[in-house]
């Protein structure tokens, strides 16, 4: 997030697109409700009637994958009405003319044809967003999990800059991260192309710095993303895989395909707190300590690095992740000997400028938000205050592209995936809880009553869902939450796995798969 969670409360407008906030980020939803109750305007763009939609000043259910068209259309209306932040654009950004040229062609007519949003609605959204300042934009995987994921994110940035909302308190572009520490994992260089704090491996000075710090010549080539790894496993280029705290058998698209790839491996190591669909295929499983059993830090969605403490000793022979990695590394010939997690933290801060001013002591109970470059720095609630990281904010002129797969005669429905409030991700943790199990026992497909009628399907009936990848049976949940022609499947449930259906087509830059759109068929189960 460019901004902080608490700031959302004081926004004058909140634009929620591609985040089902109450179900997935309930404590951020709290801020949205509070802002609304203080008088903020709320815009919700989501293909489903999510809970927040009930409170929206305007809610649109745009066609799956039509986000770029929607955002370009809003920008078209904003510029046409002269609502854009002209002095901000002049002083702080570049590339406006190119953007203007492209969005000029996204007339409300054209946008309606692509997205299904009525012209009046588009104009209202644009007006609310542009004329209530500061406006905070919130998004999640509904924006990113597309073959145009990067385009979608850039379009969010475009509209935020167009209205002068980046670099101001309670504004910003705010991706709500899906895990407690996914921000931290990225910050630490858990990506194939960067060292900690996004220092590219291909830049010689960075490579030298880290090679020196870690006493070992480091690779200067960009590695594989997970999307690259799967074909590499299949063609034998990648022979061993070490999976830590992830369950790709459930979380990667096209389960049959990933299953084949994992079977080709010579060695699969998994490290997790519970057995998962992936650990069951592993040659070696390391038992990892859970959050309550280890010390360390997590960095959350608002860039806040927070200390966690040991509440109970690890159960059984489980070890903290860092201990397992140290032992394995030492056994393989690179000695890692740390006294405790604090020693690792201090080593990290010494090579990570944005964390440079943090110590365990300074983190306290509240943590610190990066960038926090020195020991006097109080941390940074919102980014890009005086100027953007790159100097001027860059507009990207972006044309709308269709999703990889659109409905056709054979697969006439749009299918999208997401979470249910009672479960987390692939369910490895939440499905072990009796209370959460009682709340939601298995998967389902949301289906509009009109479609249910056509198929003679009643609520709770088993249906057969199929796509070009595979098929599965699941109970129908008949609800007007989805529009006719749209299906929604939660992805927590191994017995009716959404990823048997989803499309592995991915964004060319971010390599993120298109979990949010594919073409599907639905019929009453025989």
């Amino acid at each position, binding site marked *: 997030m460019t901004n*902080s969670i*608490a700031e959302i409360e004081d926004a004058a407008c909140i634009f929620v697109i591609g985040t089902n906030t*109450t*179900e997935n980020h*309930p*404590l951020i*939803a*709290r801020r949205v*409700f*509070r802002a*609304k*109750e*203080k*008088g903020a305007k709320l815009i919700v763009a989501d293909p489903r009637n999510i*809970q927040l939609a*009930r*409170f929206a000043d305007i809610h649109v259910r745009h066609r799956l994958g039509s986000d770029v068209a929607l955002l370009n259309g809003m920008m078209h209306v904003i510029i046409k009405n002269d609502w854009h932040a002209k002095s901000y654009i002049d002083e702080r950004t570049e590339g406006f003319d190119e953007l203007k040229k492209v969005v000029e062609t996204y007339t409300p007519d054209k946008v309606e044809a692509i997205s299904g949003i009525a012209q009046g609605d588009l104009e209202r959204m644009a007006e609310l967003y542009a004329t209530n300042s500061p406006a905070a934009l919130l998004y999640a995987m509904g924006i990113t999990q597309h073959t145009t994921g990067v385009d979608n994110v850039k379009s969010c940035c475009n509209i935020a800059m167009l209205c002068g909302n980046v670099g101001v308190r309670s504004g910003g572009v705010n991706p709500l991260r899906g895990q407690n520490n996914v921000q931290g994992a990225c910050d630490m260089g858990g990506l194939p192309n960067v060292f900690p704090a996004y220092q590219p491996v291909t830049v010689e000075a960075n490579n030298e710095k880290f090679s020196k710090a870690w006493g070992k010549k480091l690779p200067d080539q960009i590695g594989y993303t997970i999307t690259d790894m799967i074909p590499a496993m299949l063609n034998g280029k990648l022979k061993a895989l070490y999976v830590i705290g992830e369950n790709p058998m459930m979380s990667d698209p096209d389960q049959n395909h990933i299953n084949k790839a994992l079977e080709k491996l010579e060695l699969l190591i998994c490290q997790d707190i519970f057995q998962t669909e992936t650990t069951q295929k592993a040659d070696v499983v390391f038992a990892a300590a859970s959050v309550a059993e280890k010390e360390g830090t997590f960095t959350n969605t608002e860039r806040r690095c927070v200390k966690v403490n040991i509440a109970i000793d690890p159960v059984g022979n489980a070890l903290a992740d860092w201990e397992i990695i140290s032992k394995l590394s030492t056994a393989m010939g690179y000695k890692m000997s740390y006294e405790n997690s604090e020693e690792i933290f201090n080593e990290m801060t010494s090579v990570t400028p944005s964390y440079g001013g943090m110590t365990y002591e300074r983190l*306290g*109970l*509240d943590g610190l938000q990066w960038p926090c470059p020195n020991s006097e720095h109080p941390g940074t*609630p919102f980014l890009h205050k005086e100027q953007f990281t790159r100097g001027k904010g860059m507009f990207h002129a972006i044309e709308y592209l269709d999703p990889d797969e659109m409905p056709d005669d054979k697969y006439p429905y749009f299918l999208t995936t997401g979470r*249910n*409030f*009672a479960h987390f991700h692939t369910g490895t943790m939440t499905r072990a809880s*009796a*209370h959460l199990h*009682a*709340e*939601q026992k298995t998967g*389902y497909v949301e289906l509009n009553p009109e479609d249910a009628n056509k198929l003679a399907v009643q609520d709770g009936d088993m249906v057969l869902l199929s796509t070009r990848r595979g098929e599965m049976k699941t109970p129908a*949940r008949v609800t007007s939450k989805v529009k006719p022609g749209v299906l929604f499947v939660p992805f927590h449930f191994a017995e009716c796995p959404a990823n048997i259906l989803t499309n592995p087509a991915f964004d060319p830059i971010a390599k993120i798969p298109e979990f949010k759109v594919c073409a599907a068929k639905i019929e009453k189960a025989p």
Partner: protein
Amino acid sequence: MEEQMKEWPEPFSTTGGKTSMLVTMQEQVKEWLDQDKVDLFLGYKMVQKHPLPHCFTKDNLDEVDELIAGQARYSLEKIATKIAAERPEIKIGLLARDCNQRALNVLYVWNQLNPDNLETINVNCCPSKLKEHGDCSYLEPEQVGSFKKMIGIDNIIEVKAAEEFSQEDRFNRWMYEFQKCLKCYGCRNICPVCFCEECSLEHTDLIATGSIPPEVPIFHLVRAVHMGGRCIDCGLCEDTCPVDIPLRLLYRKVNETVEDVFGYVTGTNADQSPFNLLGDEVTLKIKPI
């Protein structure tokens, strides 16, 4: 981050130093622990600028110097209930405000705690500004937003004021509030007098599962009914509610009815409740969380 950076005032202090009252309290606790009058004492300790519930024991008597009694409010008696369920013989000391005392009375009535095994140190607090040392956070409630006042319910209004809305208006306002519910169960989990092994809120015949908001308004009405003769008006449910549903007001209304019909004022003493139909069977079992 005003909330997180908020500096809590020194306990009972206007001058910055420890007050004699606090010192007396700490000495009392030390004496109790030292002389085995209690096996443990539940109070608060300042941890990195946050007052957190803490269990003081004889093994670490010096730590009692860190015991405080500031603005922090928590259902310490709920912790006591859980301890008693596992180890009924343990003698528990407890820092008790008026609301904690009322909760203890209810827990005695319902056999969740044994008064013989409980000692309290009483501290002054709510519900009145007139009371000396009253420092409950409810004495200076947060201001409610203008839209909420217009469409929903202002959290600080009294039952009487809430009843002045027309029936239709009142209904719409409550429906607005209930629709925000995230089904986090925070209201139940913090509640000092919620101890049932089987919770009606999880009864699938009463309340459908699998989506949020939970069934409106039945989820909240089921809880409200169960608060009759139980709720001691501590307001922790509302403090906890992430979406600011005016739960305290709702349960106040329920208890007003209880008082009208049965002449029973919940929590004022440990005498038999008109709702205690099951007699005095002891059910000191832990409810799964």
